[in-house]
């Protein structure tokens, strides 16, 4: 089945997946920042749902979560941001990323329905592993929303099939055992992991955690179907606040350009 998400991963280059926290620095600023991601060349947008206790995130995204909540961002604002994005960008896939409690507070069916109405294509929930899929997965699948799963360096061969069961959209490979934005993985370990994952699934493999330079993005783009960049963009939003759209677009452009030619460079 062709979806917005599956179409976002072209055959000849990696897709660029870009993350920002919704409502950072405030809900009114986020639409322009999302537009800047698209203008800069992002293929998939990950919109972070702020949470008071982002235990898988490093300092940059933690601070973004707190800025957003301090500005008064509500779940309703995030859904409205998504709805507006879908209207302006009918073909660009949008994924919500966040933690279980804000997603399930009003019940999984409520959340899945709200996502569907807002034009959200997939959901990444950091703290619902496959063992607890019943808390959200069935509701998402019933509404045609892709439950995007994470694989990590600790996900071994015995466990991988379970992680892939019921997964959709793409597989997010967290390349380091750690929190977001801290250190980057050794390229060889990424190549080995992507090869291992590709042998087990037809889903596109997007690699993230610690990716910040065009060189890193290109190197990962040579082997993976997608490159995820988050903390580096969030740091630009932190620096420029309500005026972040321009600098975000320029930065994302450097990543997109590097990824666009990465595979030719490798062949040359």
């Amino acid at each position, binding site marked *: 089945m062709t979806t917005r998400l599956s179409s976002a991963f072209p055959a000849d280059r990696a897709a660029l997946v870009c993350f920002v926290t919704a409502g950072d620095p405030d809900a009114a600023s986020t639409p322009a920042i999302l537009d800047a991601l698209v203008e800069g060349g992002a293929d998939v947008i990950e919109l972070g749902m702020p*949470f*008071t*206790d*982002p*235990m*898988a995130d*490093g*300092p940059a995204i*933690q601070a973004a979560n*707190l800025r957003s*909540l301090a500005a008064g961002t*509500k*779940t309703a604002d995030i859904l409205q941001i998504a709805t507006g994005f879908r209207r302006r960008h009918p073909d660009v896939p949008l994924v919500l990323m966040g*933690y*279980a*409690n*804000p*997603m*399930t*507070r009003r019940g999984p069916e409520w959340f899945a329905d709200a996502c569907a109405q807002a034009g959200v294509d997939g959901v990444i929930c*950091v*703290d*619902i*592993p496959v*063992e*607890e899929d019943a*808390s959200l997965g069935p509701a998402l699948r019933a509404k045609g929303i892709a439950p995007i*799963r*994470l*694989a*990590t*360096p*600790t*996900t*071994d061969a015995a*466990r991988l099939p379970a*992680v892939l069961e019921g997964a959709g959209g793409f597989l997010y490979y*967290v390349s380091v*055992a*750690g*929190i977001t934005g*801290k250190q980057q993985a050794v390229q060889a370990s990424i190549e080995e992991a992507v090869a291992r994952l590709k042998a087990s699934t037809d889903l596109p493999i997007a690699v993230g955690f610690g990716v910040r330079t065009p060189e890193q993005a290109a190197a990962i783009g040579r082997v993976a179907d997608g490159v995820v960049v988050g903390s580096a963009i969030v740091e630009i939003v932190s620096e420029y606040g309500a005026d972040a759209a321009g600098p975000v677009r320029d930065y994302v452009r450097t990543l997109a350009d590097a990824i666009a030619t990465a595979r030719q460079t490798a062949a040359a």
Partner: protein
Amino acid sequence: MTNAAPKPNSYRNQPDAQGHFGPFGGRYVAETLMPLVLDLEKHYRAAQADPAFKAQFDDLLEHYVGRPSPLYYAERLTEELRMGAAPDKGAQIWFKRDELNHTGAHKINNCIGQILLAMRMGKTRIIAETGAGQHGVATATVCARFGLPCVIYMGATDVARQQPNVFRMKLLGAEVIPVTSGAATLKDAMNEGLRDWVANVHDTFYIIGTAAGPHPYPELVRDFQSVIGKEARAQMLSRINRLPDLLVAAIGGGSNALGLFHPFLDDDVKMLGVEAAGYGLDGNEHAASLLGGFPGILHGNKTYLLQDEDGQITEGHSISAGLDYPGIGPEHAWLKDMGRVEYTAITDDEALEGFQLLCRTEGIIPALEPAHAIAAVTKVAPTMDRDRIILANLCGRGDKDIFTVAEKLGVEM
């Protein structure tokens, strides 16, 4: 003597194979941690089946912690409360004296169990979170005892208000890292502990301090703390040849209460868990997750949480730093919904009165956590007949709290 194995319709055979207590509990952790959590469960099952593990645990509890802790009849407190009661009213009040343990609280029981498990798993580095510092001190203690490096995460706010315990941990060789993220209290310390764990999965064991977190932590912490209830049950039978009518214990995360309650769950014994009502349940300044919260997901488990309508976690407040956590162990959430345990809440002011009453009548300075249980006892004992027996858990001593109490009473130290 111990009670019999749980029957199929028992309250003592939770959780299920997936770590669920009814709809609560579970393993809500990031994928990086999931294989670790599964590995921990495997090793815990092996330890449970190994008589050598139990023998080592029992030996350390006896000779290092100082168990069994006494079972004590609080004669003058009983008489004091009878003075305000109807002529035939005023239950007998007994205490399980876990404040006499090494390090001054029940926390050490669990730390002994978990560090033995860590060493079985070949882990070489220990981390923990702490609020008031009691769990941090207990963890630092067992790390010193077994020569393992120890990192304690503690909210910067708590570091400032619990200096004596910070110094104790440092004396014991632990590194204390103040956590400045979020509200800089216990829940933020737990977030930081999880962040450390996820980045150091290969060599690090996380000693969680209460009966919460991802499965199997709620189960294994309960099991290690159940020594409290097993001893108390045997001591009651041997001293007066009967079981108590009512058990009372304070609840933050809920480990001392579960430790006392669990061995009695299938007996004809009522139970009362006491949450912290802070400035009162009618406002937001309390830490009563069961009475004032809603089910949600945080720190690896589904349970009752203090949260807003969007699922954002709200800050708990209590005079007792050990109780102001916005969640509660998942087994308590289940016991509440099943109606097996009754839950109530006690305000800061009531706890202060309970604290002073025990000092005056029994010559025991309790921690502010069990002061909440004592305050609940002062309410319920005068309504019960004189031949009834209340057993309350005196889960910690008050040395750490004298500065807080002095400040509240307007005394300069």
